[in-house]
């Protein structure tokens, strides 16, 4: 009896240990991790790292090319772009965490419930998911963004809602697999409650695919939120969110003022790359069979 119950937990313990080892071996993923840790440090220490106030307007010193005084130049209002990118890291990392946190936090339980109980509940939840998944994400995010109104956190909610269905479907799939495992059958036969079965046997099954998806999803959320900011639905001035910064420099780009848009774009790229690289590594580790491939 004890043997059956202990089986998955022991396996998971081992799994994590091998996982860490495999992750360490995977050079590229390590690069991703380093990128993200660096950005996290920069974000945390923004007031120390940033040479200037990111929202201080200095019209006389505007549109300056990168120089020693302003390493990445200044924007239309004379604000220091390096400082804005440094502070922007706070927003863009927060976007990634919150959007994915909300999406996974809401989507996963729905998926588990659908997968575990099946029947009418499953049908209802999955039909809603089908509809949400029928929208290309940018279109749904734009429509949601328009409905919720402009603002950084509203845009983040729009991004989160857009991705809920994906997590629900993923969690449902993994729950279905888990539900059929022999040890779950055994536990059920012994009269374990639904809550206990879910918590003890089903959830551990879901965690790795959700973690894998979340890591890559964070990068995707940053891109989507930046798109909303680019059309004016996301972060509002003077918030130094990177997508909004690209938009701010767009009008100046054509006369040779390339630095306003270019640097925030590179920042976005590096963070998303970081999430993607890390996601790759985590996937190799937690899900070698590739069940969570996009």
């Amino acid at each position, binding site marked *: 009896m004890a043997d059956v119950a202990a089986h998955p937990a022991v396996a998971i313990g081992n799994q994590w240990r091998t996982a860490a080892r495999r992750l360490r071996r995977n050079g590229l993923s390590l690069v991703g991790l380093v990128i993200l840790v660096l950005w996290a440090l920069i974000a945390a220490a923004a007031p120390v790292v940033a040479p200037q106030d990111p929202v201080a307007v200095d019209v006389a010193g505007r549109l300056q090319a990168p120089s020693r005084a302003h390493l990445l130049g200044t924007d239309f209002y004379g604000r220091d772009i390096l400082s804005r990118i440094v502070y922007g890291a706070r927003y863009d990392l927060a976007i990634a965490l919150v959007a994915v946190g909300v999406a996974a936090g809401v989507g996963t339980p729905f998926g588990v419930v659908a997968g575990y109980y099946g029947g009418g509940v499953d049908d209802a939840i999955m039909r809603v998911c089908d509809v949400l998944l*029928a929208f*290309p994400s*940018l*279109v749904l995010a*734009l429509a949601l963004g328009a409905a919720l109104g402009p603002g950084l956190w509203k845009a983040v909610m729009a991004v989160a809602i857009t991705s809920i269905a994906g997590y629900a479907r993923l969690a449902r799939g993994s729950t279905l697999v888990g539900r059929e495992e022999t040890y779950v059958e055994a536990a059920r036969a012994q009269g374990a409650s639904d809550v206990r079965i879910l918590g003890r046997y089903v959830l551990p099954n879901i965690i790795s695919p959700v973690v894998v998806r979340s890591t890559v999803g964070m990068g995707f959320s940053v891109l989507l939120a930046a798109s909303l900011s680019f059309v004016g639905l996301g972060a509002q001035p003077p918030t130094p969110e990177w997508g909004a910064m690209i938009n701010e420099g767009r009008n100046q*780009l054509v006369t040779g003022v390339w630095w306003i*848009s270019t640097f925030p774009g590179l920042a*976005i*790229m590096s963070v998303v790359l970081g999430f993607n690289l890390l996601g790759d590594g985590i996937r190799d580790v937690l899900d070698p069979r590739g069940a969570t491939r*996009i």
Partner: protein
Amino acid sequence: MARRLLAVPPIFVGITLVTFLLLHVVPGDPARMYLGEGAQDPRVLAALHREWGLDRPLPVQYVDYLRNLVRGNLGFSIHSGRPVAEDLRHFLPATVELSVLSFVLAVALGVPLGVLSGARVNTGADHASRVGSLLFLSMPSFWFGLIVIYVGYFLLGWLPSPTGRLGMTDTAPSPVTGLYTIDSVLAGDPGAFARALWYLLPPAVTLALPSLGLVVRMLRTSIVEVLSQDYVRTARSKGVASRGVLYRHALRNALIPTVTVLGVQFGLLFSGNVLVEAVFSWPGIGGYLVQAIQWLDYSAVMGCTLLIAGLFVAVNVLVDFTYAVLDPRVHYG
């Protein structure tokens, strides 16, 4: 398969419902947009509300919309002043042309790169294509579009101006399909064909890169996986040349998951267009949709999302068919 198809109509009803609700949550009054900025006469406003049914309860408005939709009437666009169906017919070809070309580019470049990467795991070429494809996946495409315009057109002067489908003085080929590349061929005008393609290229490349990245990654993983499978090892041990193994066994099986991704990507290209079209002044559905959202142009937004989501769903169904053909083990109840 029949079951898969039966699921489609409810999804469409769901799409209309979601879009309709979202639109009506947006604070704002389309009638005022129609009358324009500045002084307005409240009586005229009230008359418009009556005429467009905006004074009636939401459920009634929704049922009316569905009723018109079934009759093929998508309504009237307040920001273009034309029937939405006419607008969609007008703007769709530009989007289709752009999506198809970027899809072709993504596949034509992505498949060889993916195969190369998968067949030579952990070589320099593999690392390069992996990192490259990840970079493509990681950049905001609207940003890359801006950089393409800045470097290619502004700095170097190599690329065509970002004026949409043609230059200032070019005339469009006489419309048959609405696709300039095809129409110019039908008209037997190689010059026009070259011009149309020339203008298509920068936005198409911009749009293709993320899909390209995805294709390379998918194919690489699948090929690595397939090459490690028993039957491939068996074939190898039986002395089948490794090139033969790669093409006869590995590629076909590796293509199965890739087709899924490709299908989804093709559907997504239609929406990925939204911002890239704006950056390149491309007169397609994307730009039309963004404007319609800003104008609270209810009918136009509904029409666009229905069309885009419809294409998306259709492509997905098609992918499922292809999947079944490629992999005989897959059956649909």
